[in-house]
């Protein structure tokens, strides 16, 4: 009887031809997850295992790694609370189905890491601290780390925003006007591919302060991909869009700002993503050789003192920091390009 009931909607879906595959793909994992509610307990179980490992390894020196205790207990508690609440919130349920496995794997990896480092001591110690030690450094040095993150953020934003603005302007000009393209394209093709970091020696000499030169280098790194992709997007605007706009009386400003630029938006976003990646690289290099602040500087400074716990702490923060910015840009793109077929949600 259940078979007969299930078959009906299945066939209705199949009748939609192309959509059938996508629909099944969406429905199937949710259905299996629903039938196995124990996936929800993955996170608490993983946290329990990591706690056991930590207890076993530090049982002779219980004062060590307090923060790591706290952290694991919080994870355990959150996992249990989530498992208890999940039947009541559908949003939470979906999230937990998606994330609990990968999250549990991450916690288990922390446990494994601890076994390898402080447990079995397989890796040379100053260079490879345990997760507990890293968390300790992170929290003990939180003031300086926060300060460094803030400086990095400011530096990155200054450089990125400047690079994007200049890149958009030059990209639109090169893409739209063939005479600007004639003169601008060779410059772009020759100067653009030089990694921005290669200019560091020169930048340090000519600029008044390392902060200014670093921001300028980041801007340069961002400028190239943004310009390149904006220009190609603009110059590849479908001629028929421009023709249509002309037949209803559009002036050039309309053609540029209301037709060519929106049409180039998907390309422009690729440039923005590439520019963001380039800006991270340039930021870290510029900070570690020039500016005396920021996460890049913090990493090389901590390494100078052989405080590898701090090095890793800064790397962890960098990872979170950079990936948050990437995620933010993805969100912006999803809003701006809501009209595109692939990424629409409603």
């Amino acid at each position, binding site marked *: 009887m259940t078979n007969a009931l299930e078959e009906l909607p299945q066939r209705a879906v199949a009748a939609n031809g192309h959509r059938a595959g996508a629909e099944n793909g969406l429905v199937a994992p949710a259905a299996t997850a629903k039938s196995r509610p124990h996936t929800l307990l993955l996170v608490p179980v993983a946290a329990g295992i990591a706690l056991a490992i930590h207890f076993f390894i530090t049982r002779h020196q219980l004062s060590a790694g307090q923060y790591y205790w706290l952290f694991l207990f919080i994870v355990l508690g959150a996992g249990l609370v989530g498992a208890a609440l999940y039947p009541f919130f559908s949003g939470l349920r979906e999230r937990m189905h998606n994330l609990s496995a990968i999250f549990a794997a991450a916690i288990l990896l922390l446990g494994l890491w601890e076994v390898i480092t402080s447990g079995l001591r397989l890796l040379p110690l100053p260079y490879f601290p345990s997760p507990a030690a890293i968390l300790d450094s992170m929290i003990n040095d939180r003031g300086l780390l926060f300060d460094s993150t803030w400086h990095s953020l400011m530096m990155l934003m200054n450089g990125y925003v400047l690079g994007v603005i200049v890149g958009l302007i030059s990209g639109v000009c090169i893409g739209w006007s063939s005479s600007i393209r004639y003169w601008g394209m060779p410059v772009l093709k020759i100067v653009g591919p030089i990694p921005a970091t290669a200019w560091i020696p020169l930048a340090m000499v000519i600029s008044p302060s390392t902060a200014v030169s670093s921001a300028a280098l980041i801007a340069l790194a961002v400028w190239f991909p943004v310009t390149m992709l904006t220009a190609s997007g603009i110059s590849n605007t479908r001629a028929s869009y421009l023709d*249509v706009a002309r037949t*209803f009386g559009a002036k050039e400003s309309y053609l540029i700002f209301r037709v060519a630029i929106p049409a180039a938006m998907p390309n422009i976003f690729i440039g923005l993503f590439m520019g963001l990646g380039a800006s991270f690289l340039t930021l870290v290099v510029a900070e570690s050789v020039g500016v005396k602040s920021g996460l890049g500087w913090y990493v090389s400074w901590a390494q100078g003192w052989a405080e590898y716990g701090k090095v890793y702490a800064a790397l962890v923060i960098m990872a979170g920091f950079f990936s948050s910015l990437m995620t933010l840009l993805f969100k912006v793109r999803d809003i701006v390009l809501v009209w595109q077929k692939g990424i629409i949600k409603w």
Partner: protein
Amino acid sequence: MVTVGAETSSLRVREVTKSFRPPGNGAASRLALDSISLSIAAGELVAIIGPSGCGKSTLLRLIAGLDTPDSGEITIGFEQISGPSAERGLVFQDPNLFPWLTVRRNIEAGLVARGVLQEKRDEVQKFMELVGLDGFADAYPHHLSGGMAQRVALARALINHPKVLLLDEPLGALDAFTRMRMQDEVLHLWRGGRAERAVRVRPEIVSEKLLRLWQSRRTTMSLVTHDIDEAIYMSDRIMVMSPRPGRIEWTIPVELDRPRDRSSADFLRLRAEILEHLHFAGKSASGNNGS
């Protein structure tokens, strides 16, 4: 029939020649239109048929002002055209809707381009109702069927109240049923929503107010099509073009009462006549090619 002042929207093409240089090699340019002349009275709907490559699109682009003729002149009323303008709308086979704008914003685009959106905002709603897109205001073009997308394109072109509407195989990509329905809708738009027609076409969307709005407006239309039935069903006159170089070979008046019956004897007789002619024209053209 012709409303006062309508002669300003008559279209005249005088001895227009246009050639294209094939890209790449420095070969001699090829004549696409050879000294072509035609005139369309104000408010008249003229169909242009002919084999593909005979220069129909080229002709419409010249009239739209998107290209310039090598010689000859094109006038609307008493004015010689010198470039694209909102008084000449052009709708292509591909609706070419801006995919980044919703249906409403696509229809508004012409008003935005001319900077008159503020004054004319209420027209947008009227046009959406007129083409039956009321419920789709906030949909993006990729959600629309071919017929609906083409309706948006028509509304977008008509919102500027062009004197001349140029249609380049606008229904060519639609299936037979949608095409026949759209033929009625285009006629409805052309006739400015005359009561008997309008009520027959879309009784549910045509209000008295809309009818009055459209009463005085009848657009001069030039419709390029490859569908002979469509040409007979819709137009006042049919112009047959011949290829290489393109010129108007034959003009047939279509003196059938509207609404036309696609299966009436007169309709079918005219159709047979044109087919016979085209068949003959096709033979002679291929003979020319051989020599």
